[in-house]
């Protein structure tokens, strides 16, 4: 099976898994315990924190709070800082932020504002800034869009937002960027969400990176772990495996980037232009290639490819409920419904081989032509 849905989740890195296994077998203690064996795990968590943080930010200015997933990190940021007045985000957010913003309105917390996207899927910066005013408490901009791979220059946006309203808290969902896109956070970014399973870690492990001086309200309260910012017994095994996987990723990040970039371009070049048009921008994350087979249904292509041994993602759900049928992000990029219906998301990993790229494109061409013929 050729797996090209790495933006959904990646195969856990086996080496990191084996290295971290002792935290399941021998070092299974509760890190909050005061006996030696338990307490010793605190320093292991500290090491993990430091390794995971240093890859994207300065340890002098930032710190890291472990959470259970990217969604939890996003929710903690949104509900921790969106206050009276308004909160601004983009139309290209992952549901973890987008739905949380709608909830702000439902709960009567504040007015959510959504900045439009440009055709390439990145946010229209001017429009975003024009939504920010003196009553804006919180701004959230996705770093790499999970459907199109479009990259937002969050450092520049954070600076511009702070210039307009220094009190606004700036958050970014970095789940599809962390460990993939060479980048370092500037101090104007207050919060940054990451997730382990997109870079060879496990599901159920995430983190929220925060500016050190920012007081982060707890979202889950209880035993006071993570300095009271996120209670719940730490997932030591998951965290250590995340650490080991991330260290490997950061070490090979630039080489991986180049390799995946060539994969994306080769893949797209091999696709039949009579069927597939490209939605992902050239300057987007090379890990994600979004294409549309206009007039055909993405999910049907997905099943057909699946039967031929290729796994890809889709941008739309096969649903007669038209409200949720089309990806809101693809529509927000200005594409029509027919295009949105035919979206396929191909997402790569450095572990993907060249043969898989070649064969994968071939399968997509085959099923695309087959379906076009059948639907004629």
């Amino acid at each position: 099976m050729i797996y090209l849905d790495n933006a959904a989740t990646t195969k856990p890195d086996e080496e990191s898994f084996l290295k971290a296994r002792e935290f399941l077998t021998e070092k299974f203690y509760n890190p909050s315990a005061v006996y030696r064996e338990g307490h010793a795990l605190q320093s292991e968590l500290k090491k993990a924190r430091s390794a995971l943080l240093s890859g994207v930010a300065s340890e002098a200015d930032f710190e890291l709070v472990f959470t259970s997933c990217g969604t939890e990190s996003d929710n903690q940021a949104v509900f921790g800082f969106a206050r009276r007045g308004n909160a601004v985000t983009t139309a290209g957010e992952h549901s973890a932020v987008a739905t949380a913003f709608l909830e702000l309105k439902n709960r009567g917390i504040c007015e959510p504002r959504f900045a439009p996207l440009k055709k390439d899927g990145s946010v229209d910066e001017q429009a975003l800034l024009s939504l920010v005013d003196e009553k804006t408490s919180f701004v959230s901009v996705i770093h790499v869009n999970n459907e199109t791979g479009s990259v937002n220059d969050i450092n520049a946006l954070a600076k511009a937002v702070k210039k307009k309203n220094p009190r606004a808290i700036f958050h970014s969902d970095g789940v599809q960027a962390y460990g993939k896109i060479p980048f370092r956070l500037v101090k104007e970014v207050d919060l940054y969400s990451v997730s382990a399973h997109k870079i060879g870690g496990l599901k159920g492990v995430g983190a929220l990176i925060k500016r050190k001086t920012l007081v982060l309200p707890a979202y889950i309260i209880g035993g006071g772990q993570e300095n009271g910012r996120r209670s719940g017994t730490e997932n030591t095994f998951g965290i250590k495996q995340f650490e080991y996987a991330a260290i490997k990723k950061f070490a090979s990040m630039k080489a991986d980037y180049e390799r995946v970039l060539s994969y994306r371009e080769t893949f797209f070049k091999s696709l039949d232009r009579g069927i597939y048009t490209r939605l992902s921008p050239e300057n987007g994350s090379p890990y994600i290639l979004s294409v549309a087979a206009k007039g055909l249904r993405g999910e049907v292509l997905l099943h057909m490819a699946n039967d031929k041994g290729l796994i890809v993602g889709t941008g739309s759900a096969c649903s007669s409920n038209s409200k949720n049928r089309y990806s809101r992000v693809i529509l927000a990029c200005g594409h029509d419904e027919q295009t949105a219906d035919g979206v396929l998301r191909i997402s790569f990993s450095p572990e993907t081989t060249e043969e898989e790229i070649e064969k994968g494109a071939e399968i997509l061409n085959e099923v695309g032509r087959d379906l076009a013929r059948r639907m004629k």
Partner: protein
Amino acid sequence: MNKVIIIRYAEIWLKGKNRGYFERMFETNLKAALKGIDHKFVKQCGRYLIEEFAEYETEEIVERLKKVFGVHTLSLAYETDADMNSIFETAKLVCKEEGTFKVESHRGDKRYPKTSVEISRELGGMLLGAFYKLKVDVHNPDFIVRVDIRENGKALVFGEFIEGANGMPVGMAGKGLLLLSGGIDSPVAGYMMAKRGMRVDCLHFHSYPYTNEQAKEKVVELANILSQYTCGTNLYTVSVTHIQESIHEHCKAELMITLLRRFMYRIAERLALRKSAQCLITGESLGQVASQTIEGVTSSNSVVEKLPVLRPLIGFDKNEIIDRSVKMGAYETSILPFEDCCTVFLPDFPAIKPKLSDILAEESKLDVEGLIKEAFESLEKIEI
């Protein structure tokens, strides 16, 4: 003092000399429904008792029994010693503190020193003394306290009746094959036939890759819900992808559904005969959609040669069907938005009154036998 659940059956009483057969079937179904729960099953004349179960299982037992066809009413009763003081103490648990009431007594044990009228009168008096806001009204009481003197020196004390599913025990009336789509109607149609004692197997048509796994899971879930009433079921699935594609390629678009349904009925009849089902069951309701007009029904009916097609919902309004779907617990699942095969290749304007001559002309362009044979190759059986 123990809790006991009383099960009363309804229509089986009417069944003259076959009663033993019906009762055995009913008992089997009741026992099957309570599988996995520790209890003692006691048969009495005209009713059953569930005894010796854990207190916390009470609701689960009642919920399960409510789904067994043939159950007329259930009562949650307390079992106590048959002396008047014990009966009185227990009756206080059942009796409300205010309102009008009466006591109804029944002696299974005719050696009991008091007649039922005496028991009622005495217990009524004791309850009036205990709750000063109570009043007796023997004609139109707000509630009734019931006492049943048993032959083992115990008495059952209980209040209200819980309405059961009624109908007849499943298994009495043969077996039917239900065309289960994934919508609201077909599970209700299966329910209605099971209510009259029919065993139900299900047949679902899908058109993978145009439909997905979620749509299939939804149908499995619906079959699961239905199986709680039908004492189990088998779910068969058949792919009609190629049939739809052939119709799409060769025939008029507005006849897609009509022609497809004819294929479905043919396949269903053949499967039913193979699996010894004695009829087809569909969820059609007259005029609900284009293919369920009398012309549409005629066109699909005309391909079924040997078996009757039962359409228990034919005269129902959508709202009535929805009410029943909600009641049987299928509605939430039925409205999940996953496509079943009918929405793929859906014409913009389906024919409302297809003429049989047109249909036959269009169908003659297709290799009907070949397509059916091919469809049968995709037959799968899913364990429910």
